[in-house]
């Protein structure tokens, strides 16, 4: 039988570790989602009129990836502080589902449409991307309220 001592996790025994990890989580999701939102606004025709969506995507993709890596690592650390409770939390399940969907969407359809710059598909894809990422944040916050 696997025995995991929660008290041995620094996030549970150190006063500063948990909130500090959350700060990394928040700052890095601002970075990753913010850079994706920039491309979404361009796809919707609402910002950066002089640039192409392909150019904006290329210019931000490294920061998006960096943010995603930090947000996932810090998220896994937070998850490790109490895995069983998170696992049975429906907001957490919703969040993880939406996060996986949003990441897959981001690196497939979103990327393809942003690179081709077709205006019709751009509006639908930009709006879908915005909705997915915002729902990830809502799901994450809701974990603490159910």
């Amino acid at each position: 039988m696997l025995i995991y001592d929660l008290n041995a996790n620094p996030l549970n025994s150190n006063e500063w570790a948990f909130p500090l990890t959350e700060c990394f989580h928040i700052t890095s999701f601002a970075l990753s989602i913010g850079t994706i939102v920039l491309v979404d606004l361009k796809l919707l025709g609402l910002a950066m009129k002089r640039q192409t969506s392909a150019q904006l995507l290329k210019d931000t993709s490294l920061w998006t990836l960096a943010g995603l890596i930090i947000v996932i690592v810090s998220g896994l650390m937070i998850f490790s502080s109490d895995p069983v409770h998170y696992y049975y939390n429906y907001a957490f399940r919703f969040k993880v589902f939406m996060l996986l969907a949003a990441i897959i969407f981001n690196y497939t359809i979103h990327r393809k449409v942003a690179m081709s710059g077709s205006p019709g598909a751009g509006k639908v894809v930009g709006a879908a991307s915005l909705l997915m990422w915002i729902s990830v944040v809502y799901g994450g916050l809701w974990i603490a309220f159910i």
Partner: protein
Amino acid sequence: MTAAQISQAIQDVGFLTYIRESGYTYPIIMATHLASIAAFGGLILLTDLRLLGWALTDCSITDVVKGLRPWKWLGFCIMVTCGLLLGLSESNKYYGNPYFQLKMFLLLMVAVHAIVFRPTVYKNTEALDRAGAAIPSVAKAAATLSLVIWIGIACCGRWIAYYEPPRAGKNGEPVTMRVPAPDTSAPLTAKLRR
């Protein structure tokens, strides 16, 4: 009137009491606060990274600063509105919280930062673009300070939830804070601070 009475009077206002005691309204406002940090706070970080010459270098500084300005303003208004509703609805709990106080101070610094750097950076982007790849140090200084202030605001915002006011001991002396042993049997909702 003392600060305690004033803050109590504020949070006793009808709709603020409703927000505090509501089942869904409170988390919806908080989630909106957080979502606007994700969407629009990210645009602030991106503008700073552009001024440092680390991101969006194919776009001119003018395009980034001017193009994102209306969106950052929209985000700022949503963030502040939600933040005010959350803060005022629990003002009695928050006014003495040092992280809340530091956050308010840093928000004041946002205004000071804007006033100080407006003529040389934010209203001077054409000149910055003419400098080409050698971005003037005043722009880099503005970006660095902006990053420090905004990340500080986000961190203080999170830390507000972890502050416990010192309780008076038997003889009135303050009791030093101790880390409580984690209660693994407690439900998650009790562990995660709001």
